[in-house]
Structures are given as structure tokens and as C-alpha cells.
């Protein structure tokens, strides 16, 4: 008998009806909203006279356009006129009696950082959110994916979603990552090698010895980037690390249910003979620190590589680069550490190890925004804020911050910015801004060097200066 994949198991569990034409109706356990679209969706539903079916399983968070200025006000937005998105989402969330993690809550932060941290995301749950990086949450063994705003309305009204089961891809990663190579590098390497469409709208299950060895935070980073690979979502089977990660969280199982929950979660894995539509194998030991050079995440190379001769003129022109030149050593004007990709405590620790006792190069605007208040608090307990500040980094209030420009403060046009975020699209971080995606350690090394630089080259780089 053919075995079932992890996705099959979660899909079958939540499938409540055949919706026809290959579509299924899936029950949704958690809906997450944010202020950018939450207010619109809630208002639109109310105007149609439709009630929220299960308000206690809907969570609204404030992250997309909240100000990241230290000491920000309750309604302060980073985009001009953005306050109304915050106030309307708050007002509608209160009216509909859904959970609200407001700007002044000690739990506030980026939805994909807060949800795992507080047990809003759990293994085995089906969850959607009108944000494409919802695939991050698959790292816990949840069936989680990004939807549009209308789909979010649909889930609020019905508790379910009509969706076609995606094809399935297994990505087996074996081998030990080299020292200084992170989950971010693994993800960027995958996208560079197989293209930004390489995920083929599949649900991807990551497995293999490398994945087993990753921390849960690193797995969240890896799954986060699945959408940049054009995947439907990504998922990783829960293990002991996952259970430890979610145990005793605010919204996780209470004491009387924890044993039952954990035993169920540990059964969530693909059977031995489960069939996938596609399989990709990766040798993790061959991966070097990565950096994107172009305007799609697939336009990525090793930090010590040169711009390939296949580079598109459009990307080269926007990025101010030429075929055949080295990316390492290109002067930068900005550095950003944060986002749902790399805004967790381990990311801040990895950057701080490079920044300790160092100074950001003159002319580089360097900003670190922890992914949540919890991350910020934990980092401050470890004294990381002092390391960042003494190095010359700004230390911001949690939110999506400079991952995307929404009007307001940003880097100047044509500024070359090394960023721990997820998208290097034209104008993503501001009009004309040239974003280079990399791991937090590469961002930190580059900020000190004043030029694109891998952590291992930082010493040599400084000697040359």
C-alpha cells in the first residue's frame, strides 16, 4: 500500500467536503490578520452583514506599517497616512471580538515571528493569513499558506477555505552546513539553482539530516523563503525540537492536553513509501554564504563569486552592476537586519557575534529591528542591543520595518543595501534602492566593511582598507 505524505495527512484531516473540480473544502484552525489588510477584510465582511464564525480562532496583529522608531506612539505608522490602517484594524478587531495583539502589547511583532513564539501556530494546525510569508509556519509541521484578502474574508465567514490540493515536492537536504553557512544561505542557494519558479506551486516537504540538525528558528527561515521559490507552501515534520519550542506558549495546549497533543504531533510525518511528484536533493556541505545580486531572489551567487554572464540587462542596470565583476567589495550605503525571514533571536545573536567591539563603516546607515517585542526583550537581556548600538546600528521597535518601503523613512535611491530580508524586487526597500539579500552575519560583516563582505573575509578586508 502506498504511504501518505505529511501533507496528505494534514490535508485529509482537515478536508470536510469535496468542493468539486478537484477542489476541496478544508477546515481552517487559525486565521491570522495584520493591519495592512485586516481592517479592510473585517470591514468588508461586516458591510455584507456576515458574522465572524469563530472569533476566538482569529488573531489580528500589528506589523506591516507600524513605526519602528524607538519610543513610537500607539498609532504611529511608518508610512504617511498609515495610522488609519492601525486604528481601523484595532476598532474592527475589538468590534468582532477577535484576538488583538496591539501595537502596545508586550507580545506585538511580525505575525510570522509572534505566531510560533506564542503558540498561535502549532504542529498539525491548518492556518492561513493574507501574507505570502505564512509558509514560514510550516516549519512547525503546520499546514499554513498565504492567501488574499478576499480568501481571509471567506475563512472568517465560513471557517473553511476552497482550495485545490497542490502537487508535492520533497527536498532532501543532507550533509553538514559549513561553519558560517545558515538556513538563509541554503534557501537562497536552492532558489538560485532551481529558479524563482522552481517550486512549481508545489507543497514542499523539507527533510534530511541537515533539516533535522537545524534549529526551529532556522527552519522558520528556510520555510519562509518557499514563496520566493513559487511554492504553495513548505512543511517540516515536527520533532522533539519542535515540541520543546512550542511548549508552555501562551496560546498552546494547556497542561491537561499537552501529552495528548504532543503524541499526536509526533505522528505527523510522511510514511516510508509516500510518493512525491518531484524530488530535489541537496548536498548542504557544498553551500557557501550567498548574496543576491539582481532583482529576483533567483539572481543569487556565492559572496565570493562574480556576476554571471547570463545576467539580464534589466537587473544589471537597476543594480548598477556589470557581468564578470566581483560582488564582494562593492561599496554599500545601508544594512538592515530584521523581518519575518531573519528577525529572530538567533539571527540577532549571529550578527552580534560579528559586530561585537566593531564599528559600522562611515556612510553606512545600519538598522536592526527585532522581529517581535519578545525577541527584543530577550536580546536586551543578553545585552545585544548595546552591541548593535555601540557598533552604530539603530535599534528599532518590532515590525516589518525596512523589509519593504511603504512611504516614509528609507535608504536613498541607488543606495546599495545588504539586507536580511526576503525580496530584492525593484523598489522593494525604496525607489531605486538596490537590495542584496543575505544572511544576518553577511549583513553585519558588510556593515563593518562598508562593502559587501562575507564574515570570513572581514579580517582580510579590513587589512586592505
Amino acid at each position, binding site marked *: 500500500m502506498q504511504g501518505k505524505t505529511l501533507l496528505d495527512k494534514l490535508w485529509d484531516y482537515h478536508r470536510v467536503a469535496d468542493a468539486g473540480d478537484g477542489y476541496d473544502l478544508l477546515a481552517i484552525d487559525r486565521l491570522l490578520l495584520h493591519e495592512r*489588510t485586516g481592517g*479592510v477584510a473585517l470591514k468588508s465582511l461586516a458591510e455584507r452583514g456576515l458574522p465572524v464564525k469563530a472569533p476566538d480562532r482569529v488573531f489580528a496583529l500589528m506589523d506591516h506599517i507600524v513605526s519602528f522608531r524607538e519610543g513610537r506612539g500607539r498609532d504611529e505608522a511608518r508610512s504617511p497616512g498609515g495610522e488609519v490602517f492601525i486604528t481601523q484594524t484595532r476598532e474592527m478587531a475589538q468590534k468582532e471580538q477577535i484576538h488583538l495583539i496591539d501595537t502596545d502589547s508586550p507580545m506585538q511583532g511580525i505575525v510570522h515571528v509572534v505566531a510560533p513564539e506564542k503558540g498561535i501556530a*502549532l504542529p498539525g494546525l491548518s492556518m492561513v493569513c493574507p501574507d*505570502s510569508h505564512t509558509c514560514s509556519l510550516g516549519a512547525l509541521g503546520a499546514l499554513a499558506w498565504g492567501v488574499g484578502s478576499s480568501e481571509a474574508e471567506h475563512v472568517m465567514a465560513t471557517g473553511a477555505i476552497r482550495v485545490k490540493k497542490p502537487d508535492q515536492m520533497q527536498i532532501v537536504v543532507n550533509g553538514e552546513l559549513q561553519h558560517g553557512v545558515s538556513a538563509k544561505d541554503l534557501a537562497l542557494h536552492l532558489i538560485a539553482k532551481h529558479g*524563482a519558479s522552481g517550486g512549481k506551486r508545489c507543497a514542499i516537504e523539507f527533510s534530511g539530516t541537515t533539516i533535522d540538525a537545524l534549529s526551529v528558528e532556522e527552519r522558520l527561515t528556510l520555510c519562509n523563503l518557499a514563496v520566493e521559490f513559487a511554492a504553495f507552501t513548505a512543511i517540516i515534520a515536527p520533532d522533539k525540537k519542535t515540541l520543546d519550542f512550542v511548549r508552555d506558549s501562551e496560546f498552546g495546549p494547556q497542561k491537561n492536553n499537552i501529552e*495528548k*497533543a504532543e503524541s499526536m504531533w509526533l505522528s505527523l510525518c510522511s510514511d516510508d513509501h509516500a510518493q512525491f511528484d518531484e524530488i530535489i536533493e541537496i548536498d548542504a556541505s557544498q553551500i557557501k554564504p550567498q548574496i543576491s545580486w539582481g532583482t529576483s531572489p533567483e539572481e543569487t551567487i556565492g559572496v565570493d563569486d562574480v556576476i554571471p554572464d547570463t545576467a539580464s540587462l534589466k537587473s544589471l542596470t537597476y543594480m548598477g552592476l556589470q557581468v564578470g565583476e566581483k560582488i564582494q567589495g562593492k561599496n554599500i550605503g545601508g544594512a538592515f537586519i530584521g523581518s519575518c525571514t531573519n528577525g529572530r533571536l538567533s539571527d540577532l545573536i549571529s550578527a552580534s557575534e560579528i559586530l561585537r567591539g566593531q564599528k559600522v563603516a562611515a556612510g553606512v546607515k545600519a538598522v536592526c529591528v527585532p522581529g517581535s517585542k519578545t525577541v527584543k526583550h530577550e536580546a536586551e537581556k543578553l545585552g545585544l542591543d548595546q552591541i548593535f548600538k555601540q557598533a552604530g546600528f539603530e535599534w528599532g521597535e518590532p515590525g516589518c520595518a525596512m523589509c519593504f*518601503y511603504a512611504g516614509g523613512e528609507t535608504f536613498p535611491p541607488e543606495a546599495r543595501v545588504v539586507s536580511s530580508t526576503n*525580496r530584492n524586487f525593484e523598489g522593494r526597500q525604496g525607489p531605486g534602492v538596490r537590495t542584496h539579500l543575505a544572511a544576518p552575519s553577511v549583513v553585519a560583516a558588510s556593515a563593518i566593511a562598508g562593502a559587501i563582505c562575507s564574515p570570513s573575509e572581514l579580517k582580510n578586508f579590513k587589512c586592505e582598507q
Partner: protein
Amino acid sequence: MKKTFSRHSGVAAPLLIDNIDTDQIIPSREMKTVSKEGLGEGLFAGWRYTEVGGREPNQEFVLNQNSKIDSTILIAGSNFGCGSSREHAVWALSEYGIRVILAVSFGEIFHANCLRNGILAVSLSQDNIDALANASNEGEITVDLVEQTVSAASIKDWKCDFEIGAYPKKMLMEGLCPIEMTLTNEKAIDAFLQVDKETRPWVYTV
């Protein structure tokens, strides 16, 4: 959903770039209202206007060319609408007047958002996309949802077929409301909840 769709002929604008993301379709800085309306002006703002935040047309951009201003069809490359899930991209396209997008492939969430807003998003082979892009400069393009074909006024006796599932086709043709469709399954949903509350009580104690 209000709009219904069966057959559409119109001016088509080729935008033959791969991986056009929703940040390009509508930059976040143009999402100024807590509403699904008022977004058409921000469509392709980064390419369409000469300055950030400005409204002076950049004559080089295809939708600013005299023959293409009234386009109702876009022709694009692969992975169109990748990136952010912002439905504002589709609301902006819809408000501008776009009814059909022909592309080699689409971003998953964007594709679903199109369907929800009465825009027909059709995947075609690169060869057919290239042929239609050439033909779009010589006359209108016609998309027939009933027959599932695309043809061009300037290519005589030629048309290409496209695939679409029965459910999206029905949704587009009849302008159905998916919420109402799903509520017909409410009993099945509630039956699931009743059993699940016993099996996974922790899901419900929040």
C-alpha cells in the same frame, strides 16, 4: 462577486518580463486607503510615472502609449504576480480596466486573487504568448471563456486553447459568491468541528 465573464475582446498590452511581482503591480506606498477602491492610479506606479509619488506619465511604459492606454488585456511572461499576497494588485488592475491576463505562469496567491475579483488569468505556452504579443500591436485580442480559446484579429484563422477548471470557469461565468457556495456546506464544517473538539481540544481553548 458582481462581474461576470464569457467572451472579451480588447486592446492588449505586452509586458514581456518574467517574475513581475506584486510590488511592481502596486507599490506599497500607493496603498493609501483602507479600502478596495482608489488603487487604479497606483497601478505599475514605479514604471508608469516619471517620479515617485508623481503622476506625470513615463512615455516609455507600455500603458502610456496612445494605442495601449485603453488596454483591457495584459500579456506577460512567467511567474506574473509573484511576491506579496496583496490583493491590492488585483484591485488596482481591475479598477484600471484589466479583464484578462495572459501569461506563461502566475504567482499562486495572485492567481486565486484574480479569480476572486472577476479577472480571467490564463496560462499559455511561451510560443503562444510571443505570437499574441506580436499580434497585439496590430489589432484586438479576443478571449473566449466558453470555448476556452484566445485569438487575435491580426492573425487569420488562428487560435490557441487554454485550460481552466470547471469551478473557476463557473465562478467567472456566473459571478458566483464563494462564501455563499461554501455556506451550503455548513453542516459538514460544523460536523468536523464537533468531532475535532473532542480529538484536538487544545485547538479550541484559546
